[in-house]
């Protein structure tokens, strides 16, 4: 058990109920060059502070949603369904 996360459907739950899929990245819309592709695939912003990330309510309603979380404190600023 550690911090709580608020599923947009189910409300606050133990973080163990969820799976984190890491920071939100943007998939290129056009075919990228090798360097750009690998930057998208492998490189991270790895923000120490508030960042946007994907979560999945694995042991719950099975919803993917976005969270804004401060990675230095694990305080969740907000969660929302993807637009």
């Amino acid at each position, binding site marked *: 058990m550690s911090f*709580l996360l608020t599923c947009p459907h189910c409300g606050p739950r133990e973080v163990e109920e969820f799976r984190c899929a890491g920071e939100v990245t943007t*998939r*290129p819309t056009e*075919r990228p060059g090798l360097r750009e592709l690998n930057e998208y*695939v492998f490189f991270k912003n790895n923000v120490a502070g508030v960042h946007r990330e994907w979560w*999945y309510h694995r042991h719950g309603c099975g919803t993917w*949603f976005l969270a804004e979380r401060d990675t230095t*404190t694990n305080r969740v600023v907000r969660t929302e*369904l993807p637009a």
Partner: protein
Amino acid sequence: MRLPPREHELIDRSKTVTFTFEGEPVRAFAGDTIGSALFAAGRRVFGRSFKYHRRRGLLCCSGQCPNCMMTVDGVPNVRVCVRPPREGTVVKAQNVVGSLDRDLMAVTDRIGGPFTPVGFYYKTFIRPRWAWPYYEKFLRNAAGLGKLDPHVTERRRVDHEHAHAEVLVVGGGQSGLEAALAHARAGRQVVLIDEGPEPGGHQLANRERIMTMRSLAAETAQAGVEILPFARAIGLYEGNLVPVDRGSTLVKFRAETVVAATGTLEQPLVFAGNDLPGVMLPAGARRLANYWSLRPGERAVVLTVDDRGVETARELEAAGVEIAEVVDYRERVPRSVVAKGRKQVRSLTVDGKRFDCDLVVMSGSPQPNYGLLAHARARVEFDPGRGIFVPVELPPGVEVAGEASGDVGSPAVPPPSHGEGEGKSIVCFCEDVTTKDFKDAVAEGFDSIQLAKRYTTATMGPCQGRLCHLNAVRVAARETRTDEGTIGTTTARPPTSPVSMGLLAGRPHEAAKRTSMHHRHKDMGATVFWTGSWRRPHSYSADPQAEVRAVHESLGVIDVSTLGKLLVKGPDAGAFLDRLYPNRFSDLKVGRIRYGVLTNDAGRIFDDGTVARLADDEFYVTTTSTGADGVFQWFEWWNAVWHMDVELANVTGAVAAVNVTGPNARKLMERVFDGDVGNEAFAYLDAKRGHVAGVPALILRIGFVGELGYELHFPSPHGEHVWDALFEHGAEWNATPFGLEPQRILRLEKTHILVGQDTDAESNPLEAAMPWIVKLDKDDFIGKWAIEHVQERGLRSLLVGFEVPSGRMPVEGAQVVVGGKSAGRVTSVRYSEQVGKVIGMAIVPIDLSGEGTTFEIRIGGELDQAVVRTQPFHDPEGAKLRS
């Protein structure tokens, strides 16, 4: 030894229990602890210290210090001052060679002063190199405290519960009760937890205050506060989580507000001989007298920096202890203090004046017990005015009440340390760290508290700094000629006090997943083994080859229920799959099946399976057994990103699957299936719905194992019924159940890959020799760009089949060797009766991947030759699959 019955004592003299200590019976009253009963029986030495094996007596009587740790009923390191005995409890001394009173290891105390200074081990036993293991063995045996029973396998039952409180008050002393009362009166739901049998805190050992505390507790309970006795907070974690130790239950509280009313920790004074038996903290002496009606000593000297010591002197006098002197540091700070004695303290000399005594009460500055607050990242600062560390900047949802906040009453004088040159002045009781050790550490450059702590090991023992952190900082500040604020504090880490792994673990592990036909496999003699989180049949006899033969020659049946099974439905279903798979599915005809691998945007393969089109807008997707959840989540994820018109369902658990395969598979299907199974009506890679043995089913005609085969998918609850029907009707062709091991041989004969075995984290479809499932003419799919780049740069390696002419068997994982170095590896290998050879698959450098190329692999530590085979070993044309 007992005083006559006293008001408010905790013992019930009408009830007794008998336990044994070192084999001798000891009688205790109800309400006694093992420690108090042993003290009543005349025992003064309760333990031997960690390093120097110095005699140690009762010090805190509150379960904080390391002095009274014994082995109780085989469990080491039990603090007997707070452990009640049961009838027949077996108590033994620990960390002694000989007995508590005569410990042969105590020799280390005499030689250990000048000869084992701090850092000793870092500077000795360096050469010769080979000798270290011998020294180490000696050191290991000398270290440690109690001894574990290696034969224990039974675990006591522990339950875990979840609970919620609007306000959780930790600590039932006066300030905790008052805080709980105030919150309850403000209309909030309040729970108060307290470690002891009843709330009241340290004032329970104060005869003048006890009745006031009891009425406050009653008032608090009446106001609706739920009071939990014998409840110890383990820590304060993120999200205001407070796990609470209640003996055989662990209660995990989430609270909107946590109030730390954890009081203070009494601190020892530092002087020569301060660890002799008979030198006690105020609460220790008071508990002996007031809880258990024991006279802590005949004649006492009290050293104090505040009112606690003065009050304690009064309480002790009431218990018949003669008070030789009260040395109040607020009046005059002594220049030297030395305690002397052998088995226990016999005298205390203060500034040259000697007092004969058998009890010394030392009351240093009470240190706020801020552990919980520090867990929650409250900042802790040194307050030079009061000479203590206080919590500041509390996180939201956390409050502090009473003395824990630093509100410790009368200003205390920061006491100096005394007695260097007169014997050991102990700073850290757990680790036997002296003032001299600190002096030496600082002289060597360990001049911050963190470095000094690590070098001396002070604060790292069982009490985790509760009794020594403040003194350690003071001594380090003095040695560095700075102040306590500069020296800083170490981080208080959870748990607040040691917590057993049995309590944390709760009930033993959950069982593995099993398919609906599991019991049939057991009945048929299957050897069951682990694959991922599933238990599956390895084979049904000692000879997996016999099962392989049955499949090749007649008829085999295997339970493949563990496969992941997903439904993809909606107008965009085809387009959705086209974007996820390198292969194309939008042009798949209804009733047809196509194989596909899944890649990520790095072009790496992470799963594979079949896709059957059930309707224009509906697909049935199978995945690997371990990949089911991951693939479903992957699909859901992209669906959340793309917002296409598809719905997804994971039916893995709801649907069972059985593969019926072999030359006689069609004959069996004719008997059990209610549709046409002729080769034209139901061709290879067709998917049909119907009934099997009366059960609605989806049949996929596929051939993972290389023979004519039908994969039957049907609702799980009918698993045993269908299984039984297949064997009943298949008896004519000697239907044989086969397990995973024969399946692996069969699929290897076809060089069908197993994702995760024949591929790894770096495999892409081109280098996994599956260019035919990659449709680069599609606009886009996940992984397309990376695969295109692989194609442009050219392949570096290739997954190929191979045979070993020598007939020797490499292990899976054996290395392909070029020029003495690893250049690839064997991913799969088996002996195939059908082929009559050792066959396998391997990842080899691209220049060694041509048909018939010989390459070297390591077998049993020697190099042997393997030959590349790019065609399947069995039925290379696939005629049997299509027959």
